[in-house]
Every structure is written in C-alpha cells, then in structure tokens.
C-alpha cells in the first residue's frame, strides 16, 4: 500500500471515530474538543496531500481548516460555555445519547452500503465512502440535537465532510478553495453574529428558552 493511501486510511479511520464519538456525547466541552480534533485530522490529510502533490490549493485548505474549524470556532464556542454555564450540557440529549450512538453506527453502516451500491464503481479509491458517511453523521447531529452550540458542531462536521469529499474524489473541482472559504464565512456568521445577537436581543443569558430550540 503506498504511503499516501496509508495516511489517507489512517486519517479516515480517525475521522470516522471522532464522528461516532460526537454522537455519543451530551457535554458540550468534549464535543468542541472532538470537532477540533476531527478538523485537525482532516488538516493533516490535506497537508500531506499538499506536500506530496505540491498543491498550493490544498495547502490553503489545510491552513483554513486549522485556523477556522480547529482553532477559531472551537475557541469561540468555549467562550460561550464560559459565559453561559447553562449551555454546558445538552439536557434533553443526555437521556438519549445511547440511542444516538446506536443510530449513528447504524446510519454509518447504511451510508457505507449505499455508497458501495451506487457510487463505488466510479470512485474506487480506498475510503471514498468515508466523506459520505461523515456527511450523514453531520446531518444526524443537526436533526437530533437541540442545543445551539451542538448544532454548530454538526454544521462544522458537514463542512469537514465536504472538504474531505472534495480532496478524495473531486480534487480539481473549480473554485473549491473559494467555496470552502464561503462555508467558513457562513460558519463564522453562524457563531459570531447570530449567537451575539441572541445575547443582545434576549438580554439575560439565563433565559434558557433559546437553548432548546423548539416550536
């Protein structure tokens, strides 16, 4: 097995494990650490490919992944927890994490088989199904979690899935770096602007009605 494939496979397994870990956690601080590690793993893969392919685009993507999704947004989310202690844990999810984890494993298996049945002949690379599995995991997190910060983590996981898919089977996708920048801008808008407005408009942070988005 060539070194690049080994690196890709190792990182892929790591990303998959972090994705499953994120589904089984209800405390927000470990979730933030988890998504930062996942982003860092992805950045390692991007950096490796940038080096072996001498690709400046991939180097930019690696730098962006570290700067925005491994450092900036996680740091912002940590500050939110320190400011608003009630956001420390997703209360409703605490009772359901076992169910979430089982659903996540089941969905990962289903997504893997769907990929093998439909897309594998076109994308024969080892681990090509992993971005698809990661995308489904991100959607599951967004669909099942109600805590604002956890939803941001779900969004970041989806973005990681897109970058992962881009480098694995559409590396010459036009304007890919710009597209990822755009996704990052949206991520920053999500956490930076709307969460700040939330504090400004609701006034009292302990007005925890906004924690569990419902209705």
């Amino acid at each position, binding site marked *: 097995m060539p070194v690049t494939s080994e690196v890709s496979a190792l990182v892929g397994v790591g990303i998959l494990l972090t994705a499953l870990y994120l589904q089984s956690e209800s405390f927000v601080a470990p979730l933030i650490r988890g998504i930062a590690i996942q982003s860092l793993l992805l950045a390692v893969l991007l950096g490796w490919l940038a080096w072996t392919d001498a690709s400046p685009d991939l180097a930019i993507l690696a730098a962006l992944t570290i700067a925005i999704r491994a450092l900036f947004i996680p740091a912002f989310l940590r500050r939110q927890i320190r400011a608003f202690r009630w956001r420390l844990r997703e209360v409703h999810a605490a009772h359901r994490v076992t169910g979430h984890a089982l659903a996540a494993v089941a969905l990962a298996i289903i997504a893997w088989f769907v990929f093998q049945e439909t897309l594998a002949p*076109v994308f024969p690379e080892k681990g090509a199904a992993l971005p698809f599995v990661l995308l489904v995991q991100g959607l599951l997190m967004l669909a099942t979690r109600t805590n604002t910060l956890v939803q941001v983590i*779900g969004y970041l996981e989806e973005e990681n899935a897109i970058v992962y898919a881009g480098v694995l089977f559409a590396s010459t996708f*036009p*304007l890919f770096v710009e*597209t990822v920048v755009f996704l990052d801008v949206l991520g920053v808008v999500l956490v930076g602007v*709307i969460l700040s407005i939330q504090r400004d408009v609701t006034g009292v942070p302990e007005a925890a009605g*906004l924690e569990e988005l419902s209705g």
Partner: protein
Amino acid sequence: MTAFPASSFWVFLVLAAPASASVLALVPHAAASRWAARTGALLALLAAAALLVSSTAGRWGPYLGVDALSEVFLLMVASIYATSVWYSDGYLAAVHRPFLTPQVYYALLGAFAFAMLATLVVTDLGLMWIGIEATTVASALLVVLERRPTSVEAAWRYTLIASAGLTVALFALLLIYASTGSLDAFRLAASPPPVTRTLLMAVALALVGYGTKVGLFPMHTWLPDAHSEGPSPVSAMFSGVLLPTALYAFLRVYALVPRPVPPSIEALLLAFGLLTAVLGAFLLQRQRSFKRMFAYSSMEVMGLALVGVGIGGIALYGALLLLFAHAFAKSSAFYCAGNVLRADGTTHIDDIRDLRHRLPRTAGAWVLASSAVTGAPPFGTFVGELLIVAGAITAGLTPVALVVILAILVAFLGVNSQVGRMVFGAPSGLRPATPSGPDRGAGIAWLNVGVALVLGVVAIPYLGPALRSAAALLGGSAP
C-alpha cells in the same frame, strides 16, 4: 448561442444595479439611502424586462449566460425586489426599536436580491450554489429586524437548516463534477451525460439539498419560522422569489438528466412534491398566525410546482406559470399582512376582525391575494394549477391529479376562510378593534395582485413565449 453586446449590458445592469444600491444605501442620510435602494431596484427590473423582451439566449465569458428559463426567473425576482423596496419604507417607519438601521436594512435587501439575481445569470453550477448560499448570509439578519427573541431563533434555524441542506447540494455537485468533469450547466444540458447511478444519486442529493431551501417536506422546518418572524417585505421576497430561486438551482441540475427522465427520478419528484403540497395544505389549517398560514401556503405551492416539473409536458409549463403568478400574489398577501400587523400589532387570526371597515384598501387586496395564492379563477395561479392537473391526467397519472386537487381544495378553503373571518367577521368584543390603521402600501399590494390577475386572463406578449421556451428547455411543452 450567440452573444449580443446589447444584452451583455442588461446582464451587467441586472447585477450592478442591486449591488450598487446595496453599497449606496449605506449613506448616512436615510432618504438618500431609500432612494438609492429604489433606483437600484427599478434599474434591475428594467434590465430584467429588457432581457426578456430581447429574448436573447447568450453567454458572456465562461461563467455568465442567460436563456429563457433564467429570463423568466430574473423578471420575477427583480419585480418582487422592486415592490418590496417600495413597500419597505412605510413598514420600517412602524417598527419599534428595529435591530437594523434603515440604511443597513436596504443594504442587506440589495445584497439579498443581488445574490438571487446572480444565481440566475451564472452558467456554472458551483457559482449557482454559492449564489444560493449567499442568499442565506444576506437575508439571515433581515429576519431579526424586529428584535424579538423568536426572530433570533427563526434566523438561527433558517441559517443552520438551509446551510445544512446546501452542503448536501454541494456534495451532489461534487458527484456531478467527478463523473462529468464539468459544472457548466448550459453545456451539460445541451449534451447530457449518460444516465449513471452517480448522476441519479447526484440529482437525488440535489433535490434534498436545494429542496431544503425550497421548503420541501421534511426539510421545511425553517420556512414557517423565518417567514412569520421576518418583516413582511422580506417574507414577501422569501415566499415569492427565494423559494423559486432555490427550485431554479435544482432545475439546472435536473436539466442534466437525459429525456425521457428515468422513472426513479420522476417518482422521487412526485413523492416529494405531493407530500409537500398535501402537508402544507393541511398544516396551514392549524395555524393561529396569519403569516405562518401564508408560509405553509407557499410550501403547498412549491410542492405543486415540483409535481408539475416531475410530470413534464404541459404540467411543467403550468408549474412555471404557477411560480410566476404566485410570486406576485404571495408578495401582495404579505404586504397586506404587514399592514394588518402594523394596525393591530398582532398576527393572531383570532384577534383580528372587521378589516373591511378599518383597513378597506388593504382588506380588498388581501381577499383577492388570498384567492390568488390558493389558485382561484381567473388568476394566473389557477391556470398554472389547472395545467398541472391536466398534465397529470394526460400522462395517465390520475391518482396524482386527484391528490393535487385535494391539496388545492384544502388550501383554498383553509386560507380563504381564515382571511374571510379577519376581513368580514364582526369584532368579538374580547379585544377592542383598532378603529383605523395604516393603509399605506396597499397600492403596491393591489398592483401585485393585479399582475397575478392579468397573468390569468391575458396572453402577455414576450412572457408567454419565454415561458414556452423555458418549459421546452426542461423537456416540457406549452398547451
């Protein structure tokens, strides 16, 4: 396709006008800001109309181009942008402690319109995706204008759910690029790639991804919140043109599928469309807020339009006509809703009565607009829905036609009975009726509902041929 220099000017103007208006609206002087927004919107409308009249299909460089389909949507977006800008002035004046200054509001409105118009003049599927995503960035803050905690929650849901959906759409584009080596929508549609599992998967993912922004079931959950919490001119743009623009992005992916469309894709469109239409029609019955009711009505219409696309033939033409007429009718309904909200300070249907005496001009337009959005004859929406039903029967899909008729009837009864109660119902005494209210802006509502009416009774020069050509591009046909 041939490029015409005159048309390139209109394409440039249709983008430059809202972009410039967005920047110029930030001037410190409120009146100057308003007029910058109005001038930009009118210039964009002029450019969109000129493109439709010149019926030019052309390309400019590797990324810009228009055809009949984009021209129809351009006119729709530019029209509702213009009327929304015009309506906004009176609405903003009545908002207590707005979260945005009028200057920022107009700047964001311009950016929002620019993002939609840009989506419609690019030929690259990746840029279209960026355009749709940019609509989220530009419009999310507009939802928070009235500074309610529920508005923030609605903006949050909207941004998060729409963006999550759009990442799925981006995944679909990655698959298309990986299997065809191109994202040029015009070139790929002219010589469609062979039907492969990858292409079918990409179309299905694009439907789910863009469908989130269209408001298709079960990805619709952001829609009623954002529509009901946003200011009325923004709700008008959401319902009238944002949802169709997202559908347009899907249609560009759908156009890559060779005709006849594989049964699996047709079934997928019909399933999503019918479920959305029926659920939208039934859910609107349960709403206590008139703005949420109209939001669910939009969901129903988007479902019907998707059914029309899935059936093809004259139903596809009907779907495009329905979208066009609905944009005017629904924006009119939301402008009236804004007037009622300003007068009574509530969106609760049970708290509003006797509008015909208190807001006579608004009430009249509201009754007509409500009839129009639910497909009452002789509005353009009626003709569109009739063609969808006729197309289903012609294609041998009688059960589909019956479900469509059910959704139309349920929505018609639900919306019109509630609006009838608010307009003609006597005051209950539980809440003293406001004696009079701001009818300002009712003229714009009348104008838009008038357009929806004209679309149903008169063959409009230039628009009819454009709709026919647009339907033909997607494999449809005119009646």
